[in-house]
């Protein structure tokens, strides 16, 4: 604009000198104006074409949950399956029709999947039937009856990587757009769209007539092309010159591009709502945002709502002003019927339908800030910020919305139960759920409020780990089978040592009692401090710390005796890494949250492959897992079995720090590992131990998630031996009370004689008998 004004004003200042030849002057001026106008239009033309043919929009990266893999034998309940389908916006119908529809009949579910481009290739849209039996999928087949080995649903979109203020959109093509939307849009916004050349004198005339006769500004005469130009190229300033520019650009745009291209751009550009700092642009995203469904699947009443919202996305916001939006929608439906877009009957039915918006707070609209934070941190190591916010990358993660929901509800339930207890008000929490066999993070809670996107305690809260370190002490010992076995007798008695700085360290048991002589594994099962500290000192603190490092912890700890009882501090995520190695047979896996990244066009870009490294002898790990199962059966974790089936093998460890400042539990089944931390951000005292706090959340989660029983394959170097439960000496299976214990080959006690008299029992033996019977 500035360029054109300056020559004009200059010609004006020269006016007095040209009075003599008026006609010549006028001619010259006219010529200049014409040329200026031509020049201006060429300039506009360049702008119009440059932006339209280049990259039209920047698209924030989209983050997806894991796709649900369906196969016969999958552990998945029907209810969880339907929850996932709801979140994906599947329509419940009597008979399945078209992608995104599902029908439920008893224990079998029939559905039409949508198809999706994955890293490994395309998953086609297909019609499938899934049969359930209890908590398992008992059959999968194509709807035509042929058997199907495996099928994947499309993954749930769980978020994006947005800059502070951003436009977000899901690009759609014209052929993915329902015809009713296109025709409806044209009917409502620009009836002459298919015939005009960018501006429509007829609609301007009509607008002028309507506005004149009603005496107010009711109708605009802008064509769809003009609206696109306005949004796409110009500011929201309202002036005549801007209007003129808009009209010129609209004409130019029509000159270069055909109607379909312009319409497609319009469908993707139009502003349709605001979600916090994120602007919802285009019908593709609006469809997901309001209905949780792809645009192509929308029905007449949904299409009409979106078309109606174009006029005023804030004013007709259906979530905020449902009545207003409904009225507008029905008006649009009437108009569509009038214009022949829909039949009168269709219109009548559509008008009866409710708005059909997704509920806020359902799986669809809930965000998972804790997990997304983890994903973003990984991505920022590998990509530039602009690539993440502009290139439309598709990020595939291992996030499991079903497990996340279960973790959230377990946390909420425990918090509610604790509510009212003194000192619980300011307690915060964090939780990490992984698959121990694949090393993938499946769920994450950064605090007690799962929707709060702030301090992510799972990743950033570095807290003393207390007894969670003990498995490392025992693992270090059990790696030396010539010195230690599970039944080595150790002392649980008070002692004191002088530390380097001249102070005296005098550990104590939690209940301030000593237990005399015990079996090694009992020290871990009951989390005795005295015996563990003595064992650790015998082996050497640096040796234990080496084990911690080999377990996958990179944060260093001080080689003080108190570190043996957990004075060192870690984040919940680091604890998960450490326990992952214990759970996975001694193979360390860097925890992963991202599987792969695709470019906007579906081109594979990057993979985050599964990587493992064997760090420990499988035999030693087997023994530690055995002891950790004892924790759950008879030790500090035994309360789980008040809620879970005794048939379920679980392994874990509680952790409580001084004055109960931290309540921890880390444990695993065959297919699930979960770490829970509770405590105060100011590191104040709490009334919770590992067992009364974190373990409750853990148990609640496992109860909901229905884990598979722990079943570690027996390593080659493990043998079972019959031992006397009182003495730990080898015995004969025929003897009363003889029990089997695992040993690393060569370290087992020599078989005892066939049964004779029993040695006199002391307190430990009585105690031992307690769990044997």
């Amino acid at each position, binding site marked *: 604009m500035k360029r054109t004004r300056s020559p004009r004003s*200059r010609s004006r200042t*020269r006016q007095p000198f040209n009075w003599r030849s008026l006609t010549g002057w006028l001619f*010259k001026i006219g010529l200049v104006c014409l*040329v200026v106008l*031509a*020049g201006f239009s*060429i*300039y506009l033309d*360049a702008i119009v*074409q*440059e932006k*339209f*043919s280049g990259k*039209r929009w920047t698209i924030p990266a989209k983050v997806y949950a894991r796709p649900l*893999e369906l*196969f*016969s*034998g*999958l552990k998945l309940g029907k209810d969880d399956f339907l929850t996932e389908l709801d979140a994906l916006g599947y329509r419940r119908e009597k008979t399945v029709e078209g992608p995104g529809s599902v029908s439920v009949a008893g224990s079998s579910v029939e559905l039409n999947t949508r198809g999706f481009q994955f*890293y*490994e*290739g395309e998953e086609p849209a297909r019609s499938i039937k899934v049969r359930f039996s*209890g908590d*398992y*999928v008992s059959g999968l087949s194509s709807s035509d009856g042929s*058997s199907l*080995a*495996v099928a994947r649903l499309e993954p749930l979109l769980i978020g994006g990587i947005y800059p502070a203020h951003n436009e977000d959109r899901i*690009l759609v093509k014209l052929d993915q757009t329902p015809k009713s939307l296109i025709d409806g849009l044209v009917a409502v916004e620009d009836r002459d769209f298919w015939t005009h050349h960018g501006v429509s004198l007829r609609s301007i005339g009509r607008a002028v007539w309507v506005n004149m006769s009603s005496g107010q500004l009711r109708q605009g005469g802008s064509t769809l092309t003009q609206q696109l130009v306005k949004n796409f190229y110009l500011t929201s300033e309202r002036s005549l010159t801007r209007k003129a520019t808009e009209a010129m650009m609209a004409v130019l745009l029509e000159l*270069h591009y055909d109607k379909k*291209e312009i319409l497609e751009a319009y469908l993707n550009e139009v502003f349709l709502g605001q979600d916090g700092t994120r602007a919802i642009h285009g019908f593709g995203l609006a469809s997901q945002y309001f209905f949780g469904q792809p645009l192509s699947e929308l029905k007449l009443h949904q299409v009409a709502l979106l078309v109606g919202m174009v006029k005023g996305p804030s004013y007709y916001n259906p979530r905020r002003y449902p009545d207003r939006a409904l009225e507008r929608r029905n008006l649009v439906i009437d108009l569509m019927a009038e214009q022949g877009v829909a039949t009168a009957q269709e219109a009548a039915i559509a008008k009866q339908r409710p708005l059909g918006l997704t509920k806020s707070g359902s799986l669809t609209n809930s965000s998972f800030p804790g997990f997304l934070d983890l994903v973003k941190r990984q991505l920022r*190591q*590998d990509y*530039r910020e602009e*690539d993440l916010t502009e*290139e*439309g*990358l598709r990020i595939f993660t291992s996030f499991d919305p079903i497990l996340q929901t279960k973790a959230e509800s377990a946390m909420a339930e425990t918090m509610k139960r604790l509510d009212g207890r003194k000192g619980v008000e300011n307690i915060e929490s964090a939780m990490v759920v992984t698959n121990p*066999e*694949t090393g993938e993070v499946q769920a994450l809670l950064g605090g007690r409020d799962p929707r709060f996107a702030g301090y992510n305690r799972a990743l950033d809260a570095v807290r003393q780990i207390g007894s969670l370190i003990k498995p490392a002490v025992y693992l270090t010992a059990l790696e030396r089978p010539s010195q230690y076995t599970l039944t080595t007798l150790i002392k649980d008695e008070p002692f004191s040592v002088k530390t380097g700085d001249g102070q005296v360290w005098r550990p104590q048991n939690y209940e301030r009692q000593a237990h005399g002589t015990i079996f090694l594994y009992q020290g871990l099962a009951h989390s005795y401090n005295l015996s563990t500290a003595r064992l650790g000192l015998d082996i050497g603190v640096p040796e234990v710390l080496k084990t911690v490092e080999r377990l996958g912890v990179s944060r260093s700890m001080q080689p003080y005796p108190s570190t043996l009882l957990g004075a060192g501090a870690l984040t919940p995520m680091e604890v998960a890494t450490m326990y992952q190695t214990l759970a996975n*047979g001694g*193979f360390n896996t860097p925890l992963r949250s991202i*599987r792969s990244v695709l*470019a906007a*066009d579906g*081109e594979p*870009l*990057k*993979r*985050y*492959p*599964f*990587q*493992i490294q*064997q760090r420990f002898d*499988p035999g030693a790990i087997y023994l530690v897992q055995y002891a950790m199962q004892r924790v759950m059966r008879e030790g500090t974790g035994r309360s789980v079995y008040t809620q879970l089936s005794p048939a379920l093998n679980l392994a874990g460890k509680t952790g409580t720090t001084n004055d109960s400042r931290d309540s921890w539990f880390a444990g695993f089944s065959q*297919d699930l590992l979960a770490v829970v931390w509770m405590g105060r951000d100011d590191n104040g005292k709490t009334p919770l131990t590992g067992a009364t706090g974190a373990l409750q959340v853990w148990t609640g989660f496992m109860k909901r998630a229905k884990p598979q029983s722990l*079943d570690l*394959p027996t390593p*080659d170097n493990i043998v079972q031996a019959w031992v006397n439960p009182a003495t730990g000496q080898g015995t004969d299976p025929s003897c009363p009370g003889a029990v089997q214990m695992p040993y690393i080959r060569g370290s087992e006690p020599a078989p005892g004689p066939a049964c004779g008299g029993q040695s006199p029992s002391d307190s430990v033996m009585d105690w031992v008998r307690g769990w044997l019977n």
Partner: protein
Amino acid sequence: MTKTVWAALAATVVLTGCATPQRGSIPVVDASTAVSNQELARSNAPAPVGRTMTSNTGAYASVPQDSGVTVMVPGDNAAPIQTFPAAPASAPISTGPITIGPSMEGPAAPSSNSTYVPPASTPSAPTGIPSSNSGNGLAADEQLDGPILALLTTAQQQQSGGDLNGASSSLERAMRIAPREPQVLYRLAEVRLAQGDAAQAEQLARRGLTYAGGRPALQASLWSLIAQSRERQGDAAGAAAARQRAKVGT
């Protein structure tokens, strides 16, 4: 003054005219990049910070010949395992009983994978699965069932087509479904070796061994793969030891 305006306009006309993009050129968001075959760059090393979308090319390098390592693709005549000749990708695949799920205790879903054909004399480990398919020399416990079989077949096709990243990805998919199936780990180790990551190949094979109890033929193959991986890593003594285990196994 007028002249200047004229000149400026003329220049503008010429310049914008030149700058005008081709009429009708279809506007697209250009964010495409070629496949990165660097996924295995190095164990824990994060990819270089600040890599750009467009510079992140590395060409479509999944064709093994381009990756700079000797690759053994089945069907390439060079059998990956000396002990057991690789079967062509089109080898008949036996479908076994479905064993995944609640009914399954112990090691998962056993199988027949087209590259792994143990000798017919292999004693079958007792897993309670009736042997219904002895025609191709498979032990009963080595028959794979539905999803794993399907995914291993896909991975095999991808590998034959030179798409090692795709094959790797499909195998990890299989691993998520049956994490304790040693044959999946075996195949994954093979692909890692083909991708030039001998260290991971060895680790995956070792992981496979922990689940291959009672399956001597499979154990031998895994040891043989470990031997190859160690050789690649320049560990001749380790390779020899592994080869010894491979023989003992069979």
